[in-house]
């Protein structure tokens, strides 16, 4: 039995390139280049390692605007087999409830045995999408996974989960949704030929909300949460004083009543 492994990847603004809008003095996220959410690279690597062990295929999905195709191409360059862009105006305003519903339906349609996701994103970082996918489908879940051991004969996947103060080994029945702990599973570099293929010849499949039969279950209307206001957090005022000798550090230690 080989496995169908589905990976969810999301496009996010490049955290290193978010500039300040000169007119408003606010962070200008709209003009930051979009990149693949860094933790999703760990999920892709975990998927490819599972495929190496069990056999099968790795299919990548993203729910996002048409230009999110770029992150799918990156995943194909890393060695994934195929990719689906799930894109529709109807998705606008979706919180994690319809987002995870959409991905859950896509995973079901692809007949996934395992769905791999990143731990959380660098933009809204809820970490709620992977458990949400599992909950919508009634599937098992393994979050904060640091290591994976497939047991295809038993139809199970065992994960080492990072928990407060230690770890646990949890076995889950397939189908299962995994959120890979950020920083685990070092992503492999893209091969040159694969990269050329991904950039020049590859076209992802494209699905709309109607293709997944969820037109009335997505978007702003079904999203329980809404972002009310967004305030820019002013950085905490610090003295930022550079001292030129270790001795000089005693003064602040006196001030804070650490040394006498």
């Amino acid at each position, binding site marked *: 039995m080989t496995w169908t492994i589905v990976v969810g990847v999301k496009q996010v603004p490049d955290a290193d390139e978010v500039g300040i809008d000169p007119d408003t003095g606010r962070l200008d996220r709209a003009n930051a280049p979009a990149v693949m959410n860094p933790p999703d690279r760990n999920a892709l690597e975990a998927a490819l390692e599972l495929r190496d062990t069990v056999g099968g295929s790795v299919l990548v999905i993203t729910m996002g605007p048409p230009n999110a195709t770029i992150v799918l191409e990156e995943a194909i360059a890393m060695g994934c087999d195929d990719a689906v862009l799930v894109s529709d105006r109807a998705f606008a305003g979706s919180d994690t409830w319809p987002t995870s519903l959409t991905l859950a339906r896509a995973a079901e349609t692809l007949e996934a045995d395992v769905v791999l996701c990143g731990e959380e994103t660098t933009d809204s970082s809820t970490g709620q999408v992977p458990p949400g996918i599992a909950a919508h489908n009634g599937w098992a879940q393994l979050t904060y996974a640091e290591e994976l051991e497939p047991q295809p004969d038993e139809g199970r996947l065992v994960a080492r989960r990072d*928990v*407060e103060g230690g*770890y646990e080994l949890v076995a889950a029945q397939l189908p299962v949704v995994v959120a890979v702990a950020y920083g685990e599973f070092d992503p492999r570099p893209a091969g040159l030929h694969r990269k050329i293929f991904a950039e020049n010849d590859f076209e992802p499949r494209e699905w709309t909300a109607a293709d997944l039969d969820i037109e009335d279950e997505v978007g702003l209307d079904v999203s329980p949460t809404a972002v009310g206001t967004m305030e820019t957090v002013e950085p905490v005022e610090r003295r930022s004083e*550079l001292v030129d000798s*270790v001795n000089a550090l005693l003064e602040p230690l006196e001030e804070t009543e650490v040394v006498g």
Partner: protein
Amino acid sequence: MTELDTSEYADVWVFVEVHDDVMPVSWELLAEAKTLTAKTGDDLVALVIGEDVDGIAEEALARGADRVLVADDPVFEPYRADPYGAQFRAMVEARKPSIVLIGGTHTGRDFAGRVAVPTHAGLTADVTEIDVDDEGILQARRPAFGGDILATIVCEDHRPQMATIRPGVFEAADPNYACETTLEGSIERVEVVVDEADCISEVLERVVDATADITEAERIVAVGAGIEGDLEPALELAEALDAELAATRAVVDEGWVDGARQVGQTGKTVRPDLYVAVGISGAIQHVEGMNKSETVIAINDDPNAPIFDHADYGIVGDLFDVCPQLTELVQERGILEVAR
């Protein structure tokens, strides 16, 4: 979609997370939730799930819960997402709470979705400030974009209004709250609706040591990847300063320091009088967890490291020279006791 009658929903629930001991965040939520029920007039209800948890239910009353709901069964020990989610969901559907607060630990963030998705509740992640408006709508504030933004998330038309709350942000509830105010609450055992035969996961092994709590520390020496696996200089400095050791995620991921000591967006929020950052670059996800510190000192050999912008005092130098020198100076001077 059919409109939901939100007036049918009442009370503020706080989830008490138990793995042998109660996770500290649970008592933090209980105290903070009191500020909500003081405004809305709702009952504050603690929810305890586990095996043999009567003592913990009593403690929740002592710490100020008006009522406690207990789901006690071997199926809940050790924790697994599917039985917890199923039990919690059944209780929410039967009793209709207006607000549900869950600690934003790995456990809380693991199962919260298994309650929110089937009940179509609003779930706000990783919240650091809570309040209610005049209509009883929860105003849940949370950092986003690595902490550059504080977003207020609301859930107007769906119930319950659920949120996971970041550990270490609020003060813990007083263990003798009820004695001092002579409150008397009730404990109710609820029906357990999950059956082992229906579970789709199994815990094969669980290895957990007593976890350190750095959130209450008055002095912290925090290490970053610059230590390159050698904790010695930082540990000695920490000892000299009577400080707790903390770390960046990079250090925790390397396995050099236990995850309970991680500071930042996916770790703890700390607010010590003194925070010494040793070999830490100052990534936004780290700074978010330490910028409530009173005084920050940074030691880094790169004069352009962002941490210097987030420090009151900085010294550009090799930590392997600076730490031992500072340790010696502090030992010579003698430290003052931490005011606890």
